[in-house]
C-alpha cells in the first residue's frame, strides 16, 4: 500500500509539473489526490483530474479556497463538505424554499456534476449545458423508484419522446425547451405554488416565452380570457398538449387523444359529437383527417359562434366546412355537427326520423322473431311426427 502510494505520488508530481495552469502550491494536495482511484474513509472518490480541473471554471482557484477547513496534512478524513454558497450566494438563496431545498438530498453536485469539472453552462462539457440538462435532471427524474417515492410522474422518458425532447436530442436545437426552460433552475417550485412558472395560471406566460404568437392568440380566445379572469377550470397549454409528453399536433396520436380532453369539460358537446359521422370515423384510427373539435372551433383562439371572428360564426361556416368539404355551400353548412337526435325541441326533424327508424327496426324484428320462433317449434314438431310415423330417426 505504501509503495503504491509513493509511486502514485511520484507519478502525480510528474503530471502536475506538466500542467502549468495549476498553481505550484497545489502540488502538495495533488501529491495524493492526483491519484484518481483515491478514496476517503467513507469510500467516496476523492481523486482529482488535475488537467480537467485546470481547464474548468474553477481552475484558477486554489484547493484551500473551497476546502477552507483543511490547513495541514494530515487532515480529517472524511473532510468537511465544501460550502458552495460561500461564493454562490444568489444560487443558494434561490434554493431556499424550492423543491430541492434539502441540501443533503440535493447537493450542488447532483445537478452540476463533478465539483472539479465545472464548466460554464454554455460549454458542451457542462452538466447544465442546454443539451445536457434533460439527462442531468433525468438522473433522478427518470428513475421509477424515485418518482414513486415522491409521487411524481417519471417524466424523463416522456420528455425524450416529446417534440421538445426530439428537437433537443435529435436535432441538437439549443432553443428547444429543456427542463429548466419551464421549471427554472435553482428556485424550482411545485406546480401547486402560485409563484411557480408551472402553476396553472402562469403556464401561458411560461410557454409564451418561446411561443409568443400562439400565446397571443390564446389570450384572445375564450379559454385565455377565462384563465386571465382567474377561472382555473379553463384549459391552459398543458391541459391539451400535456406538460412533458408534448406531441406534434398534426401527428395522428395527438389528433386521436385530444377530443376526449375537450370533452372532459364540454361533456354534452362530446356526446353529440360522438353521434356524428365525424366522430365515428375519427374513432377508427388511421383516418385522422376527420374533423376534431379544433378543426372547426380553432385551437388557441377559440371564440363563440356569436363572435364574427370565430370560424363557427354563421358567416364563416362555408369557409370552415370547405376546408375539408370541397363544394360546401350555404345549404350544406346547415348540417349540425352537434345535433341531438334525442332532443325533440332542439332537433325535431332528427328526433322523429330516429323515432320512426327505431319503431320500424324494433317492429319488424319483434314481429319476425315471434313468427320465426313459432315456426321453428311447429316445423320441428311436424318433422318429428312425420318421421316417427315413417319409423325413421329424428336426427
Amino acid at each position, binding site marked *: 500500500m505504501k509503495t503504491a502510494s509513493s509511486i502514485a505520488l511520484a507519478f502525480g508530481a510528474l503530471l502536475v509539473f506538466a500542467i502549468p495552469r495549476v498553481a505550484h502550491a497545489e502540488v502538495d494536495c495533488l501529491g495524493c489526490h492526483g491519484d484518481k482511484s483515491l478514496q476517503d474513509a467513507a469510500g467516496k472518490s476523492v481523486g482529482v483530474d488535475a488537467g480537467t480541473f485546470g481547464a474548468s471554471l474553477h481552475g484558477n482557484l486554489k484547493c484551500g479556497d473551497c476546502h477552507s477547513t483543511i490547513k495541514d496534512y494530515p487532515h480529517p478524513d472524511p473532510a468537511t463538505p465544501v460550502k458552495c454558497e460561500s461564493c454562490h450566494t444568489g444560487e443558494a438563496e434561490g434554493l431556499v424554499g424550492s423543491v430541492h431545498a434539502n441540501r443533503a438530498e440535493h447537493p450542488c453536485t447532483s445537478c452540476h456534476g463533478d465539483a472539479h469539472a465545472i464548466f460554464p453552462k454554455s460549454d458542451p462539457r457542462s452538466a447544465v449545458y442546454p443539451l445536457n440538462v434533460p439527462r442531468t435532471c433525468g438522473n433522478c427524474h427518470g428513475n421509477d423508484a424515485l418518482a414513486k417515492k415522491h409521487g411524481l410522474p417519471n417524466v424523463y422518458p416522456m420528455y425524450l419522446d416529446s417534440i421538445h425532447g426530439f428537437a433537443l436530442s435529435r436535432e441538437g436545437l439549443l432553443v428547444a425547451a429543456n427542463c429548466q426552460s419551464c421549471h427554472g433552475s435553482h428556485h424550482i417550485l411545485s406546480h401547486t405554488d402560485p409563484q411557480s412558472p408551472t402553476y396553472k395560471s402562469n403556464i401561458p406566460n411560461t410557454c409564451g416565452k418561446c411561443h409568443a404568437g400562439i400565446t397571443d392568440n390564446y389570450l384572445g380566445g375564450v379559454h385565455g380570457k377565462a384563465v386571465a379572469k382567474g377561472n382555473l377550470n379553463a384549459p391552459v397549454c398543458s391541459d391539451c398538449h400535456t406538460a412533458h409528453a408534448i406531441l406534434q399536433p398534426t401527428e395522428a396520436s395527438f389528433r386521436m387523444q385530444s377530443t376526449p380532453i375537450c370533452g372532459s369539460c364540454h361533456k354534452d358537446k362530446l356526446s353529440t359529437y360522438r353521434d356524428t359521422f365525424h366522430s365515428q370515423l*375519427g374513432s377508427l384510427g388511421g383516418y385522422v383527417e376527420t374533423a376534431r373539435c379544433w378543426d372547426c372551433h380553432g385551437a388557441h383562439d377559440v371564440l363563440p359562434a356569436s363572435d364574427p371572428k370565430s370560424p363557427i360564426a354563421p358567416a364563416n361556416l362555408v369557409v370552415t366546412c370547405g376546408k375539408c368539404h370541397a363544394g360546401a*355551400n350555404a*345549404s350544406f353548412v346547415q*348540417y349540425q355537427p352537434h345535433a341531438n337526435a334525442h332532443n325533440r325541441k332542439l332537433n325535431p*326533424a*332528427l328526433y322523429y326520423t*330516429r323515432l320512426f327508424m327505431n319503431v320500424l327496426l324494433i317492429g319488424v324484428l319483434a314481429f*319476425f*322473431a315471434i313468427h320465426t320462433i313459432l*315456426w321453428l317449434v311447429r316445423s320441428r314438431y311436424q318433422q318429428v311426427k312425420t318421421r316417427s310415423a315413417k319409423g325413421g330417426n329424428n336426427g
Partner: protein
Amino acid sequence: MADLQQAAESKVQSHAGERYFMRFTRAQRYMHAVLFTTFLGLAATGLPMRFSESFWARRFASGVGGFGTIIFFHKFFALVLTVAFLIHLKEVFTRGLVHREKGIFWGNTSMVANWKDVKDLFGHMRWFIGLGPKPKFERYAYWEKFDYWAVFWGMVVIGFSGYAMWFAPFFARFLPGWALNAVLVIHSEEGLLAILFIFSIHFVNTHLRPDSFPMDMVIFTGVESEEEFKTKRPEEYQRVAAEGKLETRLGVKPPLWLLNFSKAVGYTAIFIGLLLLVLTLSAYFGS
C-alpha cells in the same frame, strides 16, 4: 359382394330416378351471389363505423390500415351493389314492360304481394299454434316476398342516404340542412335493421329451419328435388302440373362439385353473417 353391389346400384337408381325442377335461373343465382357478397362486405365495413367505439371495430380498423381502407371497401361494395340493383331493375322492366311477360307485376308468380299472401300469413300463424292446416304456398311465399321487398327498399333507402353522405355538398343543393343529419341516422338504422334481419330472420326462415336445415341449396344450384317442390310449394306444383308444364321446368340433378362448392360458399357466408351478428349484438348491448 354381389348383394352389396346390387344394393348400391339400386340406391343410385332410386336417386337417379328422382326428378329435379328449375326454380332459379343462372342469372338469378349470380344475382343472389353478388347480393350476399356485397352485403357481407358492406356489413363488415359498415359495422365498424356504426360501432366505432367497440374494441373489435378499432382492432379491425388498425388491422386493415385504418378507417381509410374500411370506407374505401364500403364504397366499392356499394358501387357493385348499385350496379347489380340497376341491372335487376332493367331486367324486371324489360321482362314486364318490353317483352310483356306475364306474372311479373301481378299474379301467381309475381313478387308483388296479393290477397293470398295475407291469407297465407294468417293461415301460417294459425298452423304454428295448431289451429289450422298448413297453407299451400305458391311460387313465392309471403315471407320470401317480404325478404325481397325489404332488400329492394332497403337498397333504395340505404343507397340514397349513403350517396347523400358520400356527395353531401352536391345533395345539399336540393336537400335541407337537417336532412344531412338525418341521412346518417337513416343509413345506420336501416343498415342495422337489414343486418339483424338477414343474419337472424332470413338465415333461419330460409336456411336453418328444419325443412331446409342446414342450408337451402336451391339458390346455389337452381334446382330442387320433386319432393321438395311438392312439400314446400304445393300450390305451384299443382298449378304447373295442371297446366301440363312440369316437363318444361325439369332440370338436372346438381353435380357433386356444385353441391360441395355451394356448401363451402354458403357456410362461409352464414358463418361470417353469424359472426357479424354476434359482434353487432355485443356492441349494441355492451355499450
